[in-house]
Structure formats: C-alpha cells, structure tokens
C-alpha cells in the first residue's frame, strides 16, 4: 500500500457524480451518453470533466440507448475502455445488445441508476430495469451508497477486464436514493488506482496489424461450445471477484464482502434479504427493533450475477424466516411478485434446515420504504415464525393490514 497519498481526498458528492469520478479515475477512452433521468447526472459530470480537460476521452452523445451500447461495443472491440449507462426504459431500449456484447466477451461497463419502467413516466427507483437483463451474461451488482458505487465501478473494470473473465458489467445504484443523495466519498490517489487497475487490453481487438473477424455466423452445433465457454467465464469470475475484493481492501482500505453483507445477523431469527439503497433505512429500522428486543437482521446481496448460490444458502439457512424485499416486479413469477424471491428459494433448496421465505413488494415505483414499513414486515415475519408457516408468499407492503 502506497505510503504517501497526497492526492487522496474526501468530497461530498452524490452517486451519479461518484460514478463519473470512478470513470475518470479509470481513465476511460470512450464515453457513450444519452439522456434519461436519473443517471443523466453522471454523463453531465463527465461532459464537464472532458470540457475542462480533466479527462481525455471521446465523449459521444448517442442517438439512443441502442446506439450507446453499440458504440460501447464497437469501442471495446477496438481496444478502448468504455463507459456508458442508462436508466429505466433506456436500459430496455438497448436490450438487443446485451447478449452480443457478453457473447463477444467485451468488458463494456454500464452504470445504471434504476428507474421504474413505464407506464407511465415514473422517475422513482425500481430495480426491474436492470434485473430484466440479468441473464444476459453481464456481471451485475448493486451499491447502497455513493462510496460503494465509486468502489464498485473500479472493481467491476478490474474483474470484467481480467483475461480469465472478459465479461461486461452493470454497476447498479438506486435512482435518487443513491444517485441523487450526497454523501462523503473518498477519492483515491491516482497511484492507488494505477496499482489496482492495469490498462485494458483485449487479447484480440480489431487491429489492422493482427486482423481477426468478430462474431461470424456459426452452425447450430457451434452454439453449445460457445455458450458453455460463456457460462464458464461467468462461473469462473467468482474466484476473480473474491480475489479483487480482497486486493481492493488492501490497497484502498475499504473491505467489502463480495457477495452478501450481513448486518446484526449473529443471533438473528428473522432477516431482511434485499439489495441496494434500502439497506440504509433497513439498518436504522433493525437497530430500533433490536432496542425493542426483536432478533432482526439483514443480509444484503451485493452481487446478483454471478449469483452466489452457496453463499446465500449458507447465510440464509442460519435463520428461521427470510423476508425478501423486492423493489422490482416480475409479473406472474413464482411468488407472483418480484424476481429476487425465486433466486433465494432456489439457493435454499439444498439447505438442511430451510427457513420460511416471504416476498415483500416494497419500494415499488420508487417510493421510499419507511421505518414503519420495515416494522410491519418484521411483524409479518415474526407471525410466520410463531405460526411455523407463512400466511402467503407475497405481501404488497402498504396495501395490507
């Protein structure tokens, strides 16, 4: 760890600007922007940095998110480190590109500040936008505050560009709750970043000196080996993710559990299982409830792709009741509610002692999940604990007694 860190400083910025700062520290070469709230602020900040000469990058205002992603694809294919991002329906407009980008193994990085999908135009945060793309071969995880967002960006570049991985990354944060709320963010010394993040080098870029063809058509029988390779890369990234988080902690001094953050779980009987910004409120709610003697805790999922199945199983099976806070919508899904429930249940299936699992539809449409609602959810979990069985799989928080 460097001893003299003269340029290290703490600034008060929001999540969007933190992401922009991360892109700057990563010395990205190409930025593809297109406006949509709330992630726009990231691109605004980057535009200003380029205008000020703080960052030497091609800043492209694309004509759509579809173009944003294909610009990023083209630039990454040519050997450039790229940064792009979107929110809400913008994420979905670019949907076509997600599989081609991961299939061609281009470590494009995309920042997502969540936004509810239409209808109608709702600015609030809901994870459905990014989660709908979760099986496209992108590394994906949520930050719960600006500092974590900054750190996640740097780590995601390092993981995605690792020659053992070479996969694109979605670095997600909740719209508004992270993207637009300021907090203290420690910006590192550039030498730290240099030590942590080597320059991007794709092994087979579009280079006229070493010509290759990217993405030729294949025979049906060539599909399986290519898919298997992509699956191997996704699974193989787990070891790299752990390695990188460890190294990050050593260099920057902030240690993250790569998979699941546990809060007050040592003796907990019931836990909230969630991801993203609502964890901040959850921590306060838990502290209040603990004061009243309730054995409540929280397990926050930090990385959802690749899904840490074994770890989730190990953590959640310690408890009696697990309350999954969705903040996303998966209509007609197994719990007829959100998407996180199914993943959690699948992870727990092999457990010796399976907890009861309840899905809570909370924080929908970007509404804040207030303390009162956490208490209500804890109450529902406690009832199930007492009864030994759940009342129903999914509760719509705020709409039930």
């Amino acid at each position, binding site marked *: 760890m460097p001893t003299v860190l003269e340029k290290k400083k703490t600034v008060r910025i929001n999540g969007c600007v933190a992401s922009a700062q991360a892109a700057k520290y990563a010395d990205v070469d190409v930025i593809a922007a297109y406006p949509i709230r709330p992630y726009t602020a990231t691109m605004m900040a980057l535009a200003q940095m380029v205008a000020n000469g703080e960052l030497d990058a091609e800043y492209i205002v694309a004509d759509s998110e579809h173009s944003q992603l294909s610009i990023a694809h083209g630039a990454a294919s040519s050997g450039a480190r790229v940064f792009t991002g979107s929110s809400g329906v913008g994420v979905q407009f670019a949907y076509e590109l997600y599989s081609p980008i991961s*299939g061609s193994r281009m470590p494009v990085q995309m920042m997502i500040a969540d936004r509810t999908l239409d209808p109608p135009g709702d600015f609030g945060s809901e994870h459905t936008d990014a989660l709908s793309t979760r099986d496209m071969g992108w590394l994906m995880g949520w930050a719960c505050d600006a500092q974590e967002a900054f750190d996640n960006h740097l780590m995601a570049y390092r993981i995605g560009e690792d020659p053992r991985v070479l996969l694109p990354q979605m670095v997600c944060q909740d719209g508004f709750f992270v993207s637009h709320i300021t907090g203290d963010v420690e910006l590192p010394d550039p030498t730290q970043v240099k030590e942590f993040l080597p320059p991007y080098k794709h092994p087979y870029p579009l280079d006229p000196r070493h010509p290759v063809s990217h993405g030729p058509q294949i025979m049906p029988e060539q599909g399986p*080996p*290519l898919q298997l390779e992509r699956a191997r890369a996704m*699974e193989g990234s787990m070891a790299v993710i752990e390695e990188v988080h460890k190294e990050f902690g050593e260099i920057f001094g902030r240690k993250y559990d790569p998979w699941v953050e546990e809060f007050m779980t040592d003796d907990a009987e019931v836990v909230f299982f969630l991801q993203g910004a609502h964890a901040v409120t959850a921590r306060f709610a838990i502290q209040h409830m603990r004061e009243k003697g309730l054995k409540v805790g929280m397990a926050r999922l930090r990385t959802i792709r690749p899904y840490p199945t074994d770890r989730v199983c190990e953590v959640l099976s310690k408890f009696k009741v697990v309350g999954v806070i969705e903040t996303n919508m998966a209509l007609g899904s197994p719990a007829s509610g959100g998407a996180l429930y199914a993943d959690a249940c699948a992870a727990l299936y092999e457990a010796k002692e399976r907890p009861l699992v309840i899905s809570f539809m909370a924080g929908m449409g970007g509404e804040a999940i207030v303390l009162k609602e956490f208490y209500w959810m804890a109450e529902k979990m406690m009832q199930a604990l007492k009864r030994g069985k759940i009342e129903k799989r999914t509760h719509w928080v705020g709409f039930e007694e």
Partner: protein
Amino acid sequence: MSTKGTKIPDWLTVPFAGITPAPSQDKGQNLFPTGNWRAIRPVYRDKLPPCNNACGTNEKIQGYLDLVKRGKYLDAYALIKEDMPFPSVTGRVCYHPCEQACNRGKYDEAISIRAVERFLGDLGQALTNDVVKPGKPNGKKVAVVGSGPAGHSAAYQLARLGYKVTILEKSPKAGGLNRGGIPDWVLPQNVLDREIERLVQLGIEIKTNCEVGKDVSWDDLKKNYDACVLAVGLTEPNSIRAEGENKADVLYGLPFLRDIGMGTSKVKIGARVAVIGGGNTAIDCAREALRQGALEVTMITVESHPEEMPCVAEDLHDMLEEGVELIHGRAVTSILGNGKVESLQLHPARFSGAVNASPINIDRTAKPESFVVDNVIIAVGQHASLAWLPQEFKNERGTVKMDRFGRLGDTNFFAAGDIAQFGSGQPLMVVNAVGDGKRVAFNLDKALRGEALQPRTIAIDVIMDLNRMNMTYFPHFPRVHQALLNPITRKKTQDEVIQGFSEEQAIEEANRCFSCGTCNACDNCYLVCPEPCIARPARSNGLYKILVDYCKGCRVCIEECPTGCLEGVPELDFDTGVVRMDTAFAITPGLHGRQAQELVNLSTRPAKDI
C-alpha cells in the same frame, strides 16, 4: 458450478468467443471451396485478332499495338520483326488488309495500323544495331534469287535460322520491286537502303548484277548451294493487245517506275499523259507522270466506277487530289500516231467475268473515241520471265510447277513471292510476298532437316468477332490521321507525300486497339469478380489465374471481358482441378480447432504490414 467437469470435444473446439483469425491472402479462406457450385468454368483462351489473320505475313499486330500503348517501342519493333523484315517499307507501301479487317472499322474507324508500323519501322531504322541477330551458323548455304519482298523476307528468315545466305540480284541495286516498283515519294530510297544494310549486317551476301540464266545457271545453283529460293518476281509487263502498241515510245508501268527508281530513266514526259489500267501500279504511274512534268494526266480504266478499281482507296483519293482525271469503261483499241504516240482510240468496254476467254468485253461496234496524248503508260499487270527454268518445273500455262509448299519436285528449290502466288488467288502485294518468303524459308529449313512441311495457310483458330466483345468499355474515338503534303506542291516533287506519326500520335492510335480476343491485362476480370477468385501475381498479359477451388461460375468475368478472350467451358469437359466434396457445405475436418490455435498464437505472429 454447472460447468465443472465439462469438456468440449476436439471436433467442437472453436476459437475464443468465435473470434476468427483472418485467412491468408494467397489461398483464400480454406473453409469452403465453393468451386463445386460451378457448372461453367471461365477459361482464358486467346483468339486470333482479325488483323493478324488478314495480314499477308500474319504480323502480331494486336501484340505490337499493345506494346506501343505501354511505351515499349523496342519490344514492339522486335515483335514485328519476327514476321516482317522491313516494317519501315510496309509501313509506307502496304495495302494494309489488316485495316480492312479491323473490328474497330465496324465500330467507328479502323486503327491506322500501317502508320504505327511505320512509326516502329522508322524507330528501327534509327537504331545503330538492329535488334535482330543472325542464328547460330548451321553450316548450310542457301541462294536466294531476287531481292524483292519475297527474296528479302526469305533471306532474312533463313539468316535468322543460321543459314549462310547469298542473294543474287540481276539489277545493279538490291531491292527488287521495293526499289523498282515503288516511287520515291512513297518509299524514299534511303529507307530501303537502310533495310538492305540490315540484311548485310545479318551476314547475308548480296551479289548484284547477277542474273539467273545469264550470270549463273541452274546447275550452278544446284551445285554451289544446299538449297535455293526462287523469288524473281513478275518482271514482264502485260500487253493490252491494241493496234500500234509496238511503237517505241509506248511506256509500260513497272519498267517506267523501275528506270526512274534505278536512276536510269531517259524518258521525257510530255504535257498530256494517259495511263491505262486501274490498279495500284497505274496510280503510281499517273502520279509519277505528274512529277515527271506532265500537266494533264488521265487514267483510262475498263472498270466502270472508281470503287471497282483494284487499288488502295487512299491512294486513289490522293491521286485525284493531285488532279488526275479518270475515264471509266473504256478500252484502248488502238494507239495512233506517226512513228510516235499521238492519240488513242477508245471503245466502250467492261469486264466479262470470263475465266478462260478474254476477261474484257469490248464493244467494237460503238463509235470509237479519240483521245489526244503525248505519252501513254500501260499498267495492266505483268508476268514472269522463266526462260532459265528447266522445262520439268514449268507447267502448260508457263508458270512454275511446284507443290503446295512451293517446293519444286523433290529438289531443295522453292519458289516464293509473286511467281509462286500468281494465279493462286493471293493478292500480289508486298506483304503477301513477304509472308510467302517467310513461310518458304521455314519450310526450306524443315526440308533440310527432314521434317514435315507446313501448308501455306496458317492453322486458323477462332477469329475474334466484334459481337463477342464488350463494347461498353470502348468509347468512340476518331482515327488519328497521318499528315499529307499539300497536293498542289507535292505533285511537282519527289518528297514523301504521307508523313509519319509522332510518338504521341502513335500511342493515341495504338490506344484505340480493342485487342480483339486477346488478354491485354486490362484487369477488368480481376476487378469485377465477386469472390474474388481471379488471382494476379503480376499484371501481365494472359497471366491471370482462376482459382478453381473457389470460382462459382457466375461468368461475370466472361460477360465483362472487353476483348472476349475469356470464354465459358462446361465443367464436365475438365477432369483436373475439379473440386470434389460430399456436400457444398463440407468443412475441412478439424479446421475450427486449428483456428482456435491460430488465434491463441496471433500475438506471437509478425504484425501485418499496413
């Protein structure tokens, strides 16, 4: 870990993320030899351009025009010299059957081939040393009797083959018809002298004032030489069988020109001259008469129209420009005068078309016309003087008795030129005599080496027709004309009437050549091939190669070949180079595994030069 324990079998190994290394430039990508889609294969097969075919000595005209286009004049000159010993002469005097045959003539105007030939001939004249070298001496001696076009050509070719050649010429100066039959204002003597010099440089000995039958006998020739070419030409003028033709001052075409050419003429030409005959010699005589001082020259022909006259149209045009008058459809029946020519008696006449009788029908019942003249020049053809020839080699019509190769019996004597071609249907023109001399020389060589002789006519492949070429590629472009001296002044002098091409003119004119049926490396097939499977190691005529492993047989190249040298041949006609595969989509086994390995090694490979 779902992927734990998975293994991709060798046959399914694919490169990383399907990223495929680039194929090699020379071989193409080796996955799909698409050649088995093809039913018709494009093949480069040069056809005979019509000019080459029409030329009396089959000069490779398209070939040298193509070289001139590229500024390779010496190569072009060397190419002409394969068939033609004196391009500077034929470049002036030839009746250019090539231009009549030229495909461009059917499109806009024929190429001025003769002018380009003259340009090259003059270039050759200026060289200190000629490009042609004598062959390796084979120790054999050949006599060539006569130094006219046929003799010159035969001697030249024989010297190139390594023979020791001696030319026997009865006149004081070598050249034969080239000297004696062609006026100075068409062919200046110094041009011919230079060509004769070239013969001497080839080691040919020229004995002038040496007439066969007088200075040397048949037996001398037989004894002293291994073989002999008889090219004595037609020296005796034909008579018009008119009354009073025996007057002393009646002139005959060839002797008239010959005496002027040799500088031995004593003729004084009067003011009014009539020339009898409508051929090229007659035209030369008429124009020469003007230069000898005549004021009014009239040409009297049996032909009823200028277009029927057996002459070169341009020469007729130039003659008329110089003021010569034409009287058609008349025959001279009587030459009147008291001891000397004073007037002619004319009767209407026409050609009868008869073969065995007199070819001319004269209407003697019509009222005769009188035509007052000071001189009359008769130029109605000539015949050979063969008194020296042993009787066994003469046939009943007084011509040479020979086989179809020009060989006299089983001797090593060959007849060449006009004496051989007379009556054969071949035009009796310089270039035809040159061609005959060439062919006889080659056959003589074959005879001495005991090989089978070749017939007079060359084996004709396909003569390229305009309809089989793609005219899209040839914009209309006017012919480059040679400059002429002013007709008013030129008719008083011996100055050369037709001027030569400048370098720019020669190139411009050569550029008009279509290269009919012959690959001229235009690169069009190479450029339009959709595969592209037409390879070109170097840009050079006829060196394109079709990669038959890939050609799908679309025939775009054939359609777009400007010159028509590409043709489609059904694939079933070939038993080599055919792609055999189980299906159209068969892949080389293990290819993707190799690609995967190649991709891994990519960074260690030398970078492509960009």
